[in-house]
């Protein structure tokens, strides 16, 4: 009884603030919680006439196809490793870029650089896929035209399995660094300028400032950003992998991620239930990994944990 009264008291005291929270709560309720009911599709054989809730239950049958082909481990591993590399490469580049930009004194150079770096983020992967195809085209591509004019041998990139790891990481960074660095730039802007002035009086050079002031100050931001990325570490960036690799079967063993694998398997049968099953599999793995990571961070320094 006391508890309820306390809650009501609390409610009364903060009602304006709580009122302002409503849109966000509603948003999450409608777009995040209500659709969760759709998870049942993963355990059903969807029948359009019967609808989602009226279809027959099939137990774990929808999950089978994923493990039957013997590719499950490979694609899960690929998804995890690619995302891990993406997180490491992108985060370190983003931090570096944001520090460089904030140290830049000339306003025009700074703004131009920032705009140019941001732009790739707005280019669709479909277009990027076409770029890549045209750069690496064996007969008429930009790369081979240059090589040929230099008197060198043409290279067949499309058939070279090893090259694509680097190509994918490169284009992912090219696409995401400019956009991601905005967050860090905002964090750097928030650092108290007096700290820098004081350190200058003490004779610190610019590298010491970056190492001793800037990086420690944005550490919470870095950790939160990494945690948010880790939360989706088992979700492959479908549009990127699909547009760049496409149906090039020669590369699949080293470039196939869960999302492209599932897409390819189900293109012909078009089973919604199986696709949902794969999605649920990813969600469960992501949930596990975010809990583990957050738990570790909580142990080490509870201030930085997400929850």
């Amino acid at each position, binding site marked *: 009884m006391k508890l309820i009264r306390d809650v009501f008291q609390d409610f009364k005291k903060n009602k304006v603030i709580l009122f302002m929270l409503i849109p966000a709560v509603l948003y999450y309720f409608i777009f995040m919680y209500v659709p969760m009911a759709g998870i049942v599709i993963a355990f059903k054989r969807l029948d359009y006439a019967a609808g989602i809730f009226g279809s027959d239950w099939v137990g774990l049958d929808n999950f089978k*196809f994923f493990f039957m082909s013997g590719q499950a481990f490979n694609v899960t591993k690929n998804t995890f490793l690619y995302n891990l590399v993406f997180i490491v490469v992108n985060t370190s580049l983003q931090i570096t870029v944001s520090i460089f930009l904030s140290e830049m004194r000339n306003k025009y150079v700074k703004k131009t650089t920032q705009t140019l770096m941001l732009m790739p983020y707005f280019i669709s992967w479909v277009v990027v896929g076409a770029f890549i195809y045209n750069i690496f085209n064996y007969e008429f591509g930009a790369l081979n035209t240059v090589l040929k004019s230099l008197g060198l041998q043409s290279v067949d990139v499309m058939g070279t399995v090893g090259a694509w790891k680097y190509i994918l990481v490169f284009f992912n960074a090219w696409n995401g660094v400019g956009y991601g660095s905005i967050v860090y730039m905002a964090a750097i802007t928030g650092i108290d300028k007096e700290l820098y002035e004081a350190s200058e009086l003490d004779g610190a050079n610019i590298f010491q400032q970056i190492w001793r002031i800037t990086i420690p100050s944005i550490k919470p931001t870095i950790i939160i950003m990494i945690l948010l990325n880790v939360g989706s570490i088992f979700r492959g960036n479908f549009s990127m992998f699909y547009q760049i690799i496409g149906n090039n079967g020669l590369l699949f063993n080293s470039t196939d991620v869960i999302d492209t694998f599932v897409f390819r398997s189900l293109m012909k049968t078009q089973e919604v239930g199986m696709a949902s099953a794969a999605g649920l599999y990813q969600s469960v793995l992501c949930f596990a990994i975010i809990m583990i990571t957050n738990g570790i961070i909580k142990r080490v320094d509870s201030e930085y944990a997400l929850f």
Partner: protein
Amino acid sequence: MTKYLKQISLMLVIVMLVTALAGCGSPAAGENTASTSTVSQTSASAENTAPDISKKVELNIYCVGDASPGEGSNMVRDAVNKIIEPKINATISTEYLPWSDWTNKYQLVFASGEEFDGIYTANWAYYQAQATKNGFKEITKEDLQKYAPGLLTDLPEMAWDQAKVNGKIYMIPTTFNEFPTVHFAVREDLKKKYNVPDITDLDTFGAYLDAIVKNEKGMVPLDISVMNNYSDLQQIFNTENEYAVVGNVSERNFVYKITDPGAAIVNVYETPEFMDFAKKMYQWKQAGYWSKNAISNKTPNATAFENGKSAALLTNALQATNYSEQWPVQHPGWEIQVYDSSLGKKQIGTPYIGSGLGIHATSRNADRLLMFAELARTDKELNQLLCYGIKDTHWEQVGEDQVRYIRGNTKVDYTDGLSWFFRNEKFQLNPTGVYSNYDPIFETARKNQVFHTLQAFNFDDSKLKNEVAAVSSVVTQYAVPIITGFMDPETGIPTLNEKMKAAGADKIMAAIKEQADKFIADNK
């Protein structure tokens, strides 16, 4: 004051929650029940009287394929509406699922719960998949008797049999003289220039490609896209060995011999003939007959040919008539010829369900759509309007039964997905003024045409969805690169077969065999 505020805010929260909930869940369910009840009502009331057409309706129809580039689609649609409105008090409106992305969109229009009435379907266009998921409304013989009796007499019993999935009909099939055999279309002007002898089989076709690779540096002899064209190569292999894909299985490797009346199902990947074919393709690819990029290329062979990048094209004989008409207009100096690839072997015709109209499960105007389908199939003027376009604008009649297309004006040309829904053998005209091998190719095909009981057989894979999905992924990863010469068959084919086994290909094969045997016994 504060009290009021509290009450008001509480009220607001409740109202918002309720509307949110209402907005999400219930209408979809409500709509479903509403539409099914109207359908059952109309069909119930129609039992006693003539169909009620007092209310004007618009029939929304999805076509597979691109719309005509200019005004062509609209011109034909308006002309169609002018004919049908006085007769059945309905008009049609069309939407297109363009080739570039139709496989995804086809699935989406069903899954999204969108309201539409009819959609193009075919054995190669997810007929089975959607029918087993109840994406289509069942078409019963009673419905046909009531709303479209003309269809029952116009289409042979065999056609309805082919359309049966688990004993129920979900599409209105078409009758059309066509063969799925893939032939070689070449640039006759280039062939003459380099003195290449006439093409009669794969080897002589190879000689032509060889001449191109040696002499035309800016061209790729056969500029295929693996994703879009591997099935053409597989079809050539099937023709060569008198195979046909069994039961409309989505993977094309399970076949039967068309000259053998029994049901000996073969997995082609395990045959020595496939090894030989794959070796040849491997050599061709090494020789540069198609590009090293083909595996990532997304531009279909036909587009490359149209743009002058490719010197050859794999296509069926009928499709080629469009090309040989249109492209020489765009490129003066071109001459397009098509060579028969069938080697005098037996051929099987395109099944009746190679094109057809499906009625969407939630359509409220199924009755009117059936009436439209009846008109479109049995009214000669309307049928030819749909198939060829407006007379004397899009085509002109030559003699009794020949048609000459008027093409090359992209503003009004009619090259439309709408033209395949209702093809009717009876009103079909023979194209004239097309490539000169057209008649001999069709004569040979008709002379060698055979029929097989299994043509009407549909494989029910509902118990093997997992196996089908797993096999599907193995095929894209291994079989497709092998057929197109990107993987050495000596090492590739054993790996492929091992992976196929792991994915459950044997299980699928056994199930096909069992169902096919039963089907043949039932249809003796």
